[in-house]
């Protein structure tokens, strides 16, 4: 009888010591945090530079030679899950296609980045700039002039018309990068 009581007592003491230790560790941890100082970055005063690939405000970039990249292929408009992109295609005298008007409704845009993935010419791109909220929802509809920028965005060197093999005023048949002169099929005759 006696040993059982002693063992029970010892077990209880063990439990008590465990409880005390757990409490001590808990309170010690929070107290340590009290003196660690805050990790907060205060937003309007300090703006953390965001990674270049973060998705926010959409822009229409231009070629390295300064012409607009967009060829009005409607792919971004088609892929957009909330249908916020709309445009009208046209063709210039030089042979380049362009958008007569181009409109993004940022009141609808969910910044999913699918338009950027769909774009064959790297024209439409998302930038890290996110402070674009407005009081008036109609002011959230951006026209082409609001979207266009005169730099290349993330894709510094790509020039669609230099590779695409489409005849324009700047490059004729066979004058594009990695393109050979067209072959006269009749010379291939045996």
């Amino acid at each position, binding site marked *: 009888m006696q040993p059982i009581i002693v063992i029970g007592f010892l077990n209880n003491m063990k439990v008590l010591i465990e409880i005390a230790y757990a409490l001590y560790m*808990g*309170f010690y*941890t*929070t*107290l340590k*945090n*009290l003196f*660690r*100082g*805050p*990790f*907060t970055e*205060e937003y309007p005063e300090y703006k953390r530079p965001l990674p270049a690939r973060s998705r926010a405000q959409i822009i229409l970039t231009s070629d390295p030679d300064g012409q607009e990249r967009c060829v009005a292929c409607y792919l971004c408009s088609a892929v957009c899950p909330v249908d916020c992109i709309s445009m009208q295609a046209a063709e210039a005298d030089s042979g380049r296609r362009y958008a007569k008007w181009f409109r993004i409704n940022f009141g609808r845009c969910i910044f999913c980045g699918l338009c950027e993935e769909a774009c064959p010419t790297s024209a439409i791109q998302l930038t890290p700039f996110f402070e674009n909220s407005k009081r008036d929802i109609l002011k959230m509809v951006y026209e082409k002039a609001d979207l266009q920028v005169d730099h290349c965005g993330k894709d510094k060197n790509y020039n669609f018309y230099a590779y695409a093999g489409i005849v324009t005023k700047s490059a004729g048949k066979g004058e594009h990068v990695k393109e050979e002169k067209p072959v006269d099929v009749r010379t291939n005759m045996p």
Partner: protein
Amino acid sequence: MWLWTLGYFILMAKITLVLTVVLLLAAYLVLVERKLLGRFQARIGPNRAGIFGILQPIADGIKLLVKEDVVLDGAERGIFQLAPVIVASMALLTFAIIPFGKPIIIGGHEIPMVISDINVGLLYAFALTSLSVYGVALGGWASNSKYALLGGIRGAAQMISYELALGLSIVPVVMMAGSFSLVEIVNAQAKWPFIIVQPLAFIIFFISALAESKRIPFDMPEAEAELGAGYHIEYSGMRFGLFFLGEYVQMQVLGALIAVFFLGGWRGPFLPGPIWLLIKIIGFSIIMVWIRATLPRFRYDQLMTLGWKILIPAALINIVITGVFIVAF
């Protein structure tokens, strides 16, 4: 008649002083709690309204006052409006018996530094805490909402259970002081505070006080995770503000009671009495914030087990031991 008028004005001055300090402290305890909780979690806490967020309580007060006071269609209108008043007023009334300093002698007349020294002061404090259960239970019931009702029922059960432990834990103190009057209890601690001779009673009282104030880790009645906000989920505007005020005044009340029963009340070296009482109240509040930052919420059956199976028997044993010692020596 002249003396009577003077006494009346002195009484009014004391009431005004105490209420001002208590309400201001309640407002700033909210700020202190938010600031400290922020630091405990490596955040900053409110710092936009004024330097260090010093104007935050004023902004909160204005917001609560100008918000719409919604009374639900299905609610019992009268009881719904009465409940927060009960909570806040019962907490405030307790300060009538807290002694906050040495009596001042002006022109041969002794002015006690307590609003009312009744000879059953301790019982008065417990009567008020037991009445504030009504605020919680009725607020939950009158809202006609299941979450509020659950919160109210939990609150009532929890407060009844812990009132018992609270009352029993204080019996040894009464036995040693030989009086129910808080002034006498403070005077009995002139040599040393009772926490040295009654550590077990202090621990039981402290845990029960935490449970009585319905704060973490005993915040079952308003458990955000399960009940939304519990018994005051349907309240808005200043009626919610009264519940909020009641909670923070209750913190001060319990701090003041702990100071009076165990820490020697307003007694302390060097500084004047009221300052010492304030220091003790604020210290208790800061410890409560620390506990809130550390411990998770109890499960309901654990809460009841702790109250009925551990605290109350421990308090009873403590009474017997104290009785034996008092009779023996």
